[in-house]
């Protein structure tokens, strides 16, 4: 493959044809949002830490001499970390995560990565998003495959929801595109009453049949997305407005996304997969230490508020969080006191039914790959497979394009 957007575009263009054809066949909105039955099925919140999180500063191997040598300025001493055991500490900003860990609610999986890792953010991210080495050329994202394989007959558009900016490719699906929303306050087209009556018709349109042009297909797709957003927006706005959290969320957009997920978990939505992204982990430069600490603190505040909020509610039994980053960072710090793109790093599962503790195995800091990176001890698809089989109850082989050995990550 040459470029992810090329492949994406080709897929999207053909998707347009498919969707438009569907829109042509049925005049009724395909959103099918009006299914109020409460579903107590388990849900997964996939939390992507984009940019390459420095795993060695997240789960710190402070007793390893090689770590001390490789990180002369970035290293964290044992006393500065939050203790997990005699050899491993958490970054000092991860106070809530640390507490959850000692409550047995956090599985910290070390050495997660892939064979033949890519050091390109986008390439590596694509591999994580598709669970396949070929990336987007292999087809839809892994969560989209879950959507199609496991719940393909279910028309509920709200089964997969991304909260935040750009939707990750993992959720992109030709047949069942995920709902992607930003903040709650703007889910409305604002105009006078007569304007709004008129705008409510903006997504209506006849399809040119039998041979729609590309223009017809693009228009049909834009209308379809507009219609979806009009219907979904009205419903979601009510859910967010009516929600009364049991804990206080920090006043920052990232935490607001977690508040939104909590609100949806406590609503009549039947959503099975939520997605949230925290970006900016690409810490090459001199500000790594401060920047990384700020990001992890932000992450920790949001997670802390979220679990305080859902704890003691039915939602607590229903949700597990899977946090990952497309790669860890180079073992040796660079001259700017930052770190360059690396390979393996930790992933986390958090929830009431998670088997807490350290899992996997920390890669050797001396037996590195030729580029000076950690060699993975756990293929990331084993984490996916376990989450699918043990948590969501979804058969993983077809989703992941192969069988991957499960791990004891859930009780």
């Amino acid at each position, binding site marked *: 493959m*040459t*470029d992810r*957007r*090329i492949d994406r*575009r080709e897929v*999207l*263009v053909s998707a*347009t044809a498919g969707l438009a054809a569907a829109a042509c066949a049925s005049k009724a909105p395909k959103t099918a949002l009006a299914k109020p039955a409460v579903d107590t099925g388990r849900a997964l919140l996939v939390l992507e830490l984009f940019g390459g999180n420095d795993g060695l500063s997240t789960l710190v191997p402070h007793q390893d001499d090689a770590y001390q040598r490789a990180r002369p300025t970035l290293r964290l001493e044992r006393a500065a970390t939050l203790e997990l055991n005699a050899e491993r500490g958490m970054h000092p900003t991860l106070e809530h995560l640390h507490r959850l860990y000692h409550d047995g609610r956090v599985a910290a999986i070390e050495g997660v990565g892939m064979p033949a890792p890519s*050091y*390109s953010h986008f*390439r590596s991210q694509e591999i994580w998003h598709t669970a396949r080495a070929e990336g987007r050329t292999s087809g839809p994202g892994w969560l989209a495959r879950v959507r199609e394989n496991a719940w393909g007959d279910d028309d509920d558009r709200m089964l997969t929801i991304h909260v935040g900016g*750009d*939707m990750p490719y993992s959720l992109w699906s030709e047949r069942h595109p995920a*709902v*992607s*929303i*930003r903040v709650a*306050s*703007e*889910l409305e*087209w*604002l*105009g*006078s009453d*007569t*304007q709004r*009556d*008129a*705008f409510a*018709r*903006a*997504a209506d*349109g*006849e399809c040119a049949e039998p041979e729609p*042009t*590309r*223009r017809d297909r*693009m*228009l049909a797709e*834009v*209308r379809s*997305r507009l219609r*979806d*957003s*009009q219907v*979904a*927006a009205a419903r979601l706005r009510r859910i967010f407005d009516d929600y009364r959290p049991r804990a206080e969320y920090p006043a920052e957009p990232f935490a607001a996304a977690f508040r939104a997920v909590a609100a949806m978990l406590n609503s009549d939505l039947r959503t099975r997969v939520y997605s949230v992204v925290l*970006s*900016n982990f690409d810490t*090459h*430069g*001199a*500000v790594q230490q401060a920047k990384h600490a700020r990001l992890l603190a932000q992450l920790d505040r949001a997670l802390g508020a979220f679990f305080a909020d859902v704890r003691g509610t039915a939602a607590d039994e229903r949700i597990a969080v899977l946090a990952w980053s497309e790669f860890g960072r180079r073992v040796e710090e*660079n*001259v*700017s006191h*930052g770190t*360059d*793109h690396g390979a393996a790093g930790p992933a986390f599962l958090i929830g009431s039914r998670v088997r807490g503790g350290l899992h996997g195995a920390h890669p050797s800091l001396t037996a590195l790959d030729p*580029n000076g990176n950690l060699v993975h001890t756990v293929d990331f698809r084993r984490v996916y497979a376990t989450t699918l089989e043990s948590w969501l109850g979804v058969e993983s082989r077809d989703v992941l394009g192969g069988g991957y050995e499960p791990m004891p990550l859930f009780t």
Partner: protein
Amino acid sequence: MSIFGALAITCVVLAPGASPPSHHATSSIRWDARAVEHLLNRAGFGATQSEIERGVAMGREALVAELVDGPSSTSWVDVEPTLFRWEDFGLDILQVTLPGTSYYGMTSAEQVAMCKDSRVVDRNQFLELNQQWFASMTAGADPLRDRMTLYWHGFFTTSWEVVKRKYELIRQFQWLRREAVANYADLLHGIVRDPAMLQYLDQTASAKDHPNENLARELFELFSLGEGNYSEVDIREAARALTGNRCASNGSFEFLADAHDDGSKSILGRTANFGDRELVDQLLAQDACPRWIARRIVRWIEGVEPGEERVARYAQLLRDERFELRPFFRTLFQDPDFYREDVVGTRVLSPVEYLAFAGKKLGVRPNGHFLNKAGVVLGQSFYAPPSVKGWPEGLDWVTNDALLRRGNVLGAMLGVLEVGVNETAIADDGTTVANAPDLETLIRTLDGERYEPRAELVASLKALTAHDDRSIAAFLLEEWLPSAPTPESTRLVVDWLAKERDRRGMSERGWLDDAAVRSTMLRRLAHLVFSLPEAHLG
């Protein structure tokens, strides 16, 4: 009278898949209003009906020549940016406090005030540039240059989030705009010495004993070859070749011979004592390079993935012309494939394009603060791409609430939305008072400025031969939409017009003669029309 009339006009006569060489096939382009509209949509930021009429009369070759060659004189002035030296305030280049100093702990109140003031001035000069650029896009004196500046800005991405001082960014922007339709090879040579890029991709501290690979990697993957055309070893070796290229504290490029690795390197099959010049020449010599550039530009302009035959043809053109861009565009804009049915009216506008199209058609020139905030709300802000890979393209822009959001931003720009505290309501003059915190700051940037329909638009409306709702709706839809209106949208607008007139007790012609009602209704009509699905496809 609308120059499109009531007929749907297509401009494609070639069979699908047919793509003969352009010099044989130019006669197959039907030069009509839709063709001119399409060209001006893609080579600029849309057009008013009078500009379209002018283009039809000029003829294809003359209009293409005008777009590609640009005007003989320009009113654009590169304003010399002010350089702030944050170290004078105890801050380093990334505005991190230096050892032993503290921004908030500065000894004198004057120092603190001076620093804060400088940050405001630094930010404002950036917003002024944004405003200058947007004004140029909407004025349309040099449309292809402004459009390609948007392209290169997204191609050679740099972000103010990393480059904390605006001086280097403003200089980079001015350079990109000067060179936007000149020569790709010069751009590639320039970008590895561009002070903002050197900071953005962490080249500033790269040294021979510890080369940083970030710039080298993106140089291969995004700027010249595309993935799959190089190895990890090539990147490591290229990083060595780039060592020594730095941004000096005065914001200009400097080469530090001491930091440069002058040993032998092996890059893409050639072993030599590579420096940055030789490295870029080696990239330009690869077959993958013109193919990558041709594919990216054609795809961006047309909004459709080009076929392999066309990629090869345009790559060859770049090679033959030594990466000169004007021959490339001259050929593209006279290529029947550029005017084919799959391309016309099918490209999703990006947020900046959407705002520029609306600004141009309506004659609105918002201030820099508004544009900056609108960019944030819509997901495309000046010098803040989502990643080094630049902006999304096509339907990737149409995430679920994106269209609702665009409508609201436009409503703010048109002055039909105002900030309220409690709930959404309609004021006496027809302004919607909204309780939307995210729009509040956006609307506040307008400082009471409000769109008034252009005098020429009012004159054209009054001069229409018929003033029934249908004729007025048809005229406005052609005037404002970047592509042909659908019957559904026409009906929707006609119905709204009739209903709104009735509500106000106005006759079909009467509302045009009442200045206050006319102003309110045209603003609301514009808000509605620019929120239609067709408004996003140009």
